[in-house]
């Protein structure tokens, strides 16, 4: 197990290193002028030149790369060009916000998706199965901003049971925060339910037909025992992989939802940094989102190996 983990960790670090190079090069090839992006198209050219100098954006690419890498390895992410604050100060609250929304969405959608998938599998071919499968697929195929429109319209403006935006007041308690985050989280439930339920259904159907399930039934275990001890443990393997791949999306890929619900998450930070050519912010934010993807995948690998010892043993051999 230790060797398996070590190998996964080294692979993750190599991926992160390669990502850092890609991120830096991609950020630099974005067209445009940093100070011009900050001061606007009508700013005096002398002001643009002065600001570029002040920000260090007029230095050669190699020097900027050296400064960035040097700072990054020492934990200094630099200063954001547009906000003029340390990058970590900008990213940290956004990352926390994104994590809160992602966590709430996960807490809602994972049990619902698995439950839906298992029920559909147990009722395979019946009306319940079709409702869950087709309904889930339709919900997933509908873009998230459409769900945003629907939930705002119904829950916030007509029924007035939830706030129209997700920007909870500063200093509010966990319950208030959850109330504000419910609308975007519900949208994410709609978007992700289909994926998870579909995988859980397929895994469950496969596990239900397996020899070990038949053996468990024949040896007289109750349906609940068969399901929890044998079917679920095996059927969840592909579902875990799907859930892990959604973690990165939930942290860094929610630009549209964050804009609609006026929520300061990492998605908005990324979008604005790219728009304003705020390279220090953009580079660090992309790397951190990449890190989240890697960690989620790593966590999935570990969980996978715990549930399925064959994978762990293959890794060690």
């Amino acid at each position, binding site marked *: 197990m230790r060797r398996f983990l070590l190998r996964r960790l080294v692979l993750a670090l190599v991926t992160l290193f390669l990502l850092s190079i890609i991120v830096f090069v991609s950020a630099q090839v974005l067209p445009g002028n940093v100070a011009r*992006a900050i001061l606007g198209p*009508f700013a005096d050219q002398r002001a643009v030149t002065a*600001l570029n100098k002040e920000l260090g954006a007029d230095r050669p690419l190699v020097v900027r790369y050296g400064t960035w890498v040097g700072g990054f390895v020492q934990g200094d992410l630099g200063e954001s060009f547009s*906000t003029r*604050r340390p990058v970590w100060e900008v990213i940290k609250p956004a990352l926390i916000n994104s994590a809160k929304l992602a966590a709430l969405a996960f807490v809602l959608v994972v049990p619902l998706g698995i439950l839906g998938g298992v029920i559909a599998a147990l009722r395979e071919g019946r009306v319940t199965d079709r409702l869950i499968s087709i309904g889930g697929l339709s919900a997933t195929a509908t873009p998230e901003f459409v769900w945003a429109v629907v939930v705002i*319209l119904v829950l916030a403006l007509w029924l007035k049971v939830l706030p129209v935006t997700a920007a909870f007041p500063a200093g509010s308690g966990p319950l208030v925060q959850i109330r504000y985050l419910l609308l975007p989280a519900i949208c994410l439930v709609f978007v992700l339910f289909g994926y998870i339920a579909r995988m859980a259904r397929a895994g469950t159907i496969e596990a239900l037909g397996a020899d070990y399930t038949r053996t468990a039934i024949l040896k007289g275990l109750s349906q609940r025992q068969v399901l929890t001890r044998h079917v679920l443990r095996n059927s969840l393997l592909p579902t875990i992989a799907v859930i892990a791949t959604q973690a990165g999306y939930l942290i860094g890929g929610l630009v549209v939802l964050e804009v609609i619900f006026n929520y300061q998450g990492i998605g908005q930070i990324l979008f*604005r940094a790219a728009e304003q050519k705020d390279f220090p912010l953009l580079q660090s934010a992309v790397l951190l989102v990449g890190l989240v993807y890697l960690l989620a995948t790593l966590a999935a690998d570990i969980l996978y190996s715990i549930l399925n010892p064959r994978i762990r043993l293959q890794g060690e051999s």
Partner: protein
Amino acid sequence: MGMSIPLLSFIAAACGGGGETPAPSGGGSNNAKPQAGGALRTGIGVQAGALDPVTVNFEAGLTVLGQSGEYLAWSDKNLELQPRIAESWKPNGDASVWTFKIRQGVKFHDGTPLTAEDVATSINLHADPDNGSNALSVFGTVLKKGAAQATDDQTVKVELEAPNGNFPYLVSSDNYNLIILPKTYDGDWEKTFIGTGPWKLDKYTPEVSVTFTKNPDYWDSSRQPVADTSEIKFYAEEQAKVLGLQGGEVDIINNFSVVGGKALLTDPTILVLEVESSAHRQIHMRTDIPPFNDKRVRQAMALLMDRDALVQGLWEDKASLGNDSPLASVFLSTDTSVEQRALDVAQAKQLLADAGAEDISVELRGWDGFEMPDLAAVIKNQAQQAGISVQLNITNATTYYGESVFGESPWLDSSFGITEYGHRGVPNVTLDAPLTSNGVWNSAHFKNKTYDGLVADYVAALDLQNQKKFSSKMQELLLDEVPIMFLYFYFHLGATKENVTGVEKTGMGHIDLTKTGFTG
């Protein structure tokens, strides 16, 4: 943020109350007396960068600067200057030196008394090209580094590069970067929001909100805030802001467009605030290369534009007609007796025939913001009435503006393009930069010595009567030459819940909330 989520307009419209009766409107909120106290919540646009008085160039930034900061003078909704930090001002004989008498007894939020030296340092901060100030686009040809001097405790003298009769406007709230800062200011405004204004910082969460409380030491007894606190919330998207107002998350929004907030115009629970402004779109036609190097072709294009239909269709009548000069009817110096250009397809066809230009094909450049893509489509259709073929090339703003210098900018290099210009309290900048021979924004490449002379005369003129005289000549000249089409000047729109009163807006986007409160 520049993202467009049209479906959200649908929601806002669906929740517009369904009323057919237009909401009350007209430059101010309801006239009831506000109750003292309460917590105001105002929604504004996206915080697109640092809240730094030197670099701010976005509306949300200027709105916040104007809460805790103060200017030498306030340019009100009627474009008249109200004294603030400056008690009074006077020019020398030819308006090349202006002297400001600085108000005594004013304190910064940290308790430090404001001095004439603070004022001089603030002006010089923006006039120095090495500081990268956004205000340099106004000061560039007007002031040199170190132009302002405190001659004694109460007096600041500013020496200009050339006579300028409107100079006080250039150091007023119209030049929104110019809040008066302490002479020790070191560039970290977001930590303190220091100023001398009626509101002082209570709490700031970047990109989310800023809350102000009353400044107990505020000098002006007539402008003590009615409400206890004022929270300003940033919204990344206009529709989210509109929904925030409709959903009760905020009580006031400082700005919305007709395109994005149409639902508010018919919502009976909303009061719409409108202020006439000089904000507009310029449609330039390059005067030095075909097809627009012939004046008759430019005139024909201008005659093909149905301005009434544009104002009604794109702006729901929340705009005034443009007459192909930057001199909007809202400016005090504009000659409103100059004949308004109107749609005349027959004359346009005749002019094109006279010019031998009946088969023109031209590309129209622009970018995908505000109502501009719709405007481009209308121009294309209206030009077709006389057989002019217009191909649209609408990109994002970064592509359109390029490097913002000649030779590296579709904005400045294209034959035909649409550019957005914000409000100004006096037309000095828009008469000069986009239209004079050496103008840095002269996308029409218009070179006319008579016009250049008239602009210089106008800028130097001290009294309104003389300014009107030169305005009239410029309006006639531009109406004839048409280097740029000015089709409309749109109003600055804001909105409040119906129980809010006392909001004062300006065409620039400032919002004065000192007299704002709830009626019940």
